[in-house]
């Protein structure tokens, strides 16, 4: 028997990770070429930029800035959080049902590859999403980026926000019983959170306890981090505590990243263990009846 076993234990895993990265990249390229996904990016960008354009002449109280300057970074943060939670949640819920995950389970270290692929795919999806908003915004509005060094802040806020939110999406995808339930357990809470996280109006306008709730979740901090990147130092005056609270931003986003990095693998393993052909067949049955 011994000669048939793979040589070192570490290498097939690394091999699977490499295949998974290639898998994720292939799916990202497929997504860029898909009119469905292009439409999604353009549509969300159109809504965001349209909103900014309509309110381009509205001054922001307490600053000498116009609304687009303040709202663009907030919306960007909100969009990234939204995409990184809803994207993986839908993908996972869907691929549990259609057998993609089961296929991965049927090949050696296939799940390692699958999840590596998911990470690459959803992380890369930030790029078209932000570009689709940023390019028209910079063409239409002035004074968006106060200081070019802000781009560096944009980069680290995005990376940290990615680590904090993407696992939440995976958790939702792993826990929901079916694709139809992502709306209820994913979309709805994220929308509610977007409403109270200072994306469309300053969080300080809300009741105290709502502010506390919003600050427990990553979306507020993603928005705040983005504002700190784009806006001049003086604009911090309208934030809670009159500061960008960079340390707190890193702490909260970091805590979410660490906590979910611990929880998500356990959840995913539990979910994968339950995958079987009859489960997929049952989902297929349910889906055909749902469409009828």
């Amino acid at each position: 028997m011994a000669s048939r076993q793979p040589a070192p234990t570490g290498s097939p895993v690394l091999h699977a990770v490499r295949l998974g990265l290639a898998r994720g990249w292939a799916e990202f390229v497929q997504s860029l070429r898909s009119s469905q996904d292009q439409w999604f990016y353009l549509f969300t960008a159109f809504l965001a930029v349209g909103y900014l354009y309509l309110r381009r002449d509205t001054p922001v109280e307490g600053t000498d800035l116009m609304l687009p300057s303040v709202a663009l970074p907030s919306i960007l943060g909100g969009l990234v959080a939204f995409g990184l939670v809803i994207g993986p949640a839908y993908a996972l819920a869907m691929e549990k049902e259609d057998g993609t995950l089961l296929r991965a389970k049927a090949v050696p270290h296939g799940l390692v590859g699958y999840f590596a692929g998911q990470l690459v795919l959803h992380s890369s999806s930030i790029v078209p999403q932000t570009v689709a908003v940023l390019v028209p915004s910079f063409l239409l509005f002035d004074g968006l980026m106060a200081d070019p060094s802000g781009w560096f802040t944009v980069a680290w806020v995005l990376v940290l926000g990615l680590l904090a939110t993407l696992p939440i999406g995976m958790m939702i995808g792993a826990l929901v019983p079916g694709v139809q339930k992502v709306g209820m357990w994913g979309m709805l809470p994220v929308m509610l959170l977007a409403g109270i996280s200072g994306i469309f109006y300053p969080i300080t306008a809300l009741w105290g306890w709502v502010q506390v709730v919003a600050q427990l979740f990553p979306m507020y901090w993603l928005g705040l981090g983005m504002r700190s990147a784009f806006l001049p130092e003086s604009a911090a005056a309208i934030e809670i505590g009159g500061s960008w609270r960079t340390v707190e931003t890193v702490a909260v986003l970091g805590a979410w990243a660490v906590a979910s990095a611990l929880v998500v693998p356990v959840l995913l393993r539990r979910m994968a263990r339950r995958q079987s052909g009859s489960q997929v067949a049952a989902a297929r049955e349910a889906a055909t009846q749902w469409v009828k």
Partner: protein
Amino acid sequence: MRENEHSAPVVEVRDLRMRYGATDVLTGVDFTVGAGEVVCLLGPNGAGKTTTIEILEGFRQRSAGSVSVLGEDPSRATEGWRARTGVVLQSWRDHPRWTPRRLLDQMGGYYAPYGTAERPRPTPTEELLDVVGLTDLADQKISTFSGGQRRRLDVAMGIVGRPDLLFLDEPTAGFDPQARREFHHLVHRLADLEDTTILLTTHDLDEAEKLADRVLILAGGRIVADDTAERLALRAAIEVEVKWSRDGERFVHATQDATAFVHRLLDEHGAAVEDLEVRRASLEDAYLALVQRHESGQSDEAAQAFTEVI
């Protein structure tokens, strides 16, 4: 195949039990599958075929009993074990944006560390596409595929790792007759040329007879018959059914010696005997009776009656 694998069975199942809530689906299943065999698990829908095969695939935890597949317990199997087994899954909309060539390259890649000199893994994609007849569609999006084309891709993905043991659960469900014949041809080819041990399930007796070296009939939560299709047919054919009518009344009699019975019948009643019909029972009759009784809810009785006939 190596020496020691000829002696040890590839699959060994002892007293396998499965219970969902208060329902016993498997009540003590025993069977073995030898290296290189093609074994068909036949039974009515709902008899527990899928449950059994999913336990062997390592996708489902059993309630009790012992199971050994390729020398390991599937519920605790390693990735090395996974590499030696193949599962043909029934897809319906997965990987819609991929092409068969890319997908087979990706899926096959995971097997590369597990190849050996005597059994290189994975099977080259070109070869695989040719085997399942998808060469012309190799670069088309899978979302454009018909049901039959998708199923051929399912088979390709099941065998991409050149498995020692292949599981197929109701592989030809939804196939047209042409596709079914091509598929049977493919199974024979795998068994003969690739030395693959194959375990498949079906509810279709005809398919079991065509494909399998050995047929296991699952009913009432256990294996009620385990033999080659030919020998099962012979055993079922011992009884002969004689039907006739006399004075407008229908009669049926089952006997082992039809000739003697018909002699006596005609001696006794002569020309009064009409519509005489003598029919040797077939495996099909026995199996259909089993399915019928199973579907009317008497699965235990069905299994009992079947064991008496066979």
